[in-house]
């Protein structure tokens, strides 16, 4: 038997739902952030580079246009200043550029952004875009002009330390918010569950009241399941209490017989003494029988899962039990016979199957008139084994044939002493072997035929 502590965690719980929820939140935020970063990289590397190159070309064309209209160096410088001003007005740093205008291959104008010294200037000999500079070259053949323009590749800062702090800031700022949210969600979300837990903890064998219903859709099934379990426990407890009361009551009668006769044993009258001794022995036998039956029932009510079944020769077991019943049968002048094959191996729990056989046999022998026959019959098919005990006793009226399986039920006008547990034990023991018990008429419509149909256990 396990104590009431059974099932409780032997070690303190180590996992934290809060940590788990927080980790999921952070994981989700991180995934979103990574997706955004991928999008950002694409935007910077592809879209902004394309736009930058378009700007570069447009401004180079502007420069050519100015030249064609005869603008001088001052005009071109003013143009660059306006361009930078436009960026600043929009709130951006203007991109760094290098502009060269050549006539017949000789440099006639050059302009560089003032901050060009901050970065590695473009190599004028390398007339192509690279990872740092966007390059464009335009020509105006009739004026023998050639314009070269380098503009910084946009978004370089995105991939430096500055960019990292810029992009990770929102993520780190959101962490405390996530933690707080996780904590709140759990705290609020689990409060009703904690309350249910407290209610369950307050239940004791003496207090199996149902839990108060939960208004939460998510919790209602749990509460309902617990209430159903409590109801089953209550029912079981009531059954046990009834059983205990009935069993104790059943013992009181034989004990009363014993007590009533104990004093008579001191009588001077030898005949009275002998009669009292006889009745006292009967009382003891009845009490012993009741105790035996109660123990037997307790055994046959055990969980079938916990019973160890073994391959047993049922014919052998039947013979063994008939030998034990033969003594009483012989005294009552009843002939017991067994009609069975040589052997019949079956996966059985020997103890409970023995009780089943004993009770069927003792019923048959007890209720049969002297000189009658009790036939035990065993027939084995492929799918089931049928065990039948037939007698020539008074039988059981059809109307009572389900009632007699109830605990402590005894048919009215019953003079043969008994515990009222015999057929209950038979039924429970049969149930443990997935077997059915049916009661019918005996030989020629007289007496009782009790048949147990034992399905052959699923092999393997």
């Amino acid at each position, binding site marked *: 038997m396990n104590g009431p502590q059974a099932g409780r965690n032997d070690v303190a719980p180590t996992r934290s739902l809060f940590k788990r929820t927080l980790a999921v939140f952070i994981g989700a935020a991180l995934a979103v952030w990574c997706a955004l970063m991928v999008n950002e990289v694409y935007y910077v590397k592809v879209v902004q580079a394309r736009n930058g190159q378009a700007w570069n070309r447009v401004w180079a064309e502007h420069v050519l246009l100015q030249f064609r209209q005869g603008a001088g160096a001052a005009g071109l410088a003013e143009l660059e200043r306006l361009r930078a001003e436009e960026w600043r007005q929009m709130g951006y740093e203007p991109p760094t550029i290098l502009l060269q205008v050549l006539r017949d291959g000789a440099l006639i104008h050059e302009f560089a952004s003032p901050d060009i010294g901050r970065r590695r200037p473009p190599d004028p000999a390398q007339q192509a875009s690279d990872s740092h500079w966007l390059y464009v070259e335009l020509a105006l053949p009739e004026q023998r002009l050639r314009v070269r323009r380098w503009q910084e590749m946009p978004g370089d800062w995105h991939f430096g330390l500055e960019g990292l702090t810029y992009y990770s800031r929102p993520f780190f700022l959101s962490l405390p918010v996530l933690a707080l949210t996780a904590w709140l969600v759990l705290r609020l979300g689990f409060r009703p569950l904690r309350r249910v837990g407290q209610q369950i903890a307050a239940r004791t064998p003496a207090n199996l009241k149902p839990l108060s219903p939960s208004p939460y859709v998510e919790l209602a099934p749990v509460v309902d399941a617990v209430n159903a379990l409590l109801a089953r426990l209550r029912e079981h407890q009531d059954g046990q209490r009834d059983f205990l009361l009935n069993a104790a009551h059943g013992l009181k009668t034989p004990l009363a017989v014993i007590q009533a006769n104990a004093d008579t044993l001191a009588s001077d009258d030898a005949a009275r003494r002998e009669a009292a001794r006889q009745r006292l022995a009967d009382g003891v036998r009845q009490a012993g029988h009741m105790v035996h039956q109660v123990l037997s029932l307790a055994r046959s009510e055990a969980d079938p899962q916990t019973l160890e079944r073994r391959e047993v020769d049922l014919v052998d077991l039947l013979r063994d039990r*008939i*030998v034990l019943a033969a003594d009483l049968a012989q005294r009552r002048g009843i002939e017991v*016979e067994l009609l*069975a094959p*040589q052997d019949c191996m079956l996966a059985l729990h020997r103890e409970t199957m023995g009780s089943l056989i004993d009770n069927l046999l003792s019923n048959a022998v007890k209720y049969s008139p002297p000189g009658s026959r009790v036939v035990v019959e065993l027939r084995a098919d492929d799918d089931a084994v049928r065990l039948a005990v037939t007698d020539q006793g008074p039988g059981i009226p059809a109307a009572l044939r389900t009632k007699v399986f109830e605990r402590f039920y005894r048919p009215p006008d019953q003079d043969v002493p008994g515990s009222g547990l015999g057929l209950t034990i038979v039924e429970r023991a049969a149930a443990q072997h997935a077997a059915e018990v049916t009661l019918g008429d005996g030989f020629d419509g007289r007496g009782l035929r009790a048949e147990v149909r034992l399905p052959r256990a699923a092999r393997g």
Partner: protein
Amino acid sequence: MKVCLVEDDLTLGRSLQAVLQDGGHEALWVRRVADARFWFDEQRPDAMLLDLGLPDGDGLDLLRHVRRHEAQMPVIVITARDGIEDRLQGLDSGADDYLVKPFVGAELLARLRAVARRAGLGGEADAGQWTARDLVLDEKRRRVTRAGAPVALSKTEFELLATLLKFTDRVLTRRELEVRALPGSDGHALDVHMANLRKKIGEGYIRTVRGVGYAVEP
């Protein structure tokens, strides 16, 4: 007969001691496995009554200890456990018979007498003689008489009758008879020998329990 009674319960122990003494036996009552083992080793009683539920050990272990040193000593197991498994375990461990609590004193003495007689104890004048009404089997002289007239039996028939007469208190199953009287035979041999035996000793002595076995009416 010197009987070692192993029973831990005071009231039951005292009662059984009285029953044994009233039955003319010398009762050596102990309440623990260790004491029982000591007295068994020291005194070698003639028979033992052994309760299985003892406070300082398992009665079955003691039984095995006894059987290691005394194969023939009659041992009756007394048990509160009326389960089949307990009974079979007791008999498998070498008990000659068993009694389930509660039992009547007269029953105890009768069982004790039966196991002692089967073990050849008692030293009565009729030792080795087994009877059922006017049928007498003399085991030592290997002779059977019916109403004083000799009955000639084969060796197997003699063994069969001897086994039946030794257990007049109960039905013997076919298997028990085969094991004790016809070792190594098949199921049909028993029927043949039984039919012959009945023919020779006459009807009315051996009762058939159909499908189960045979018993001799004492």
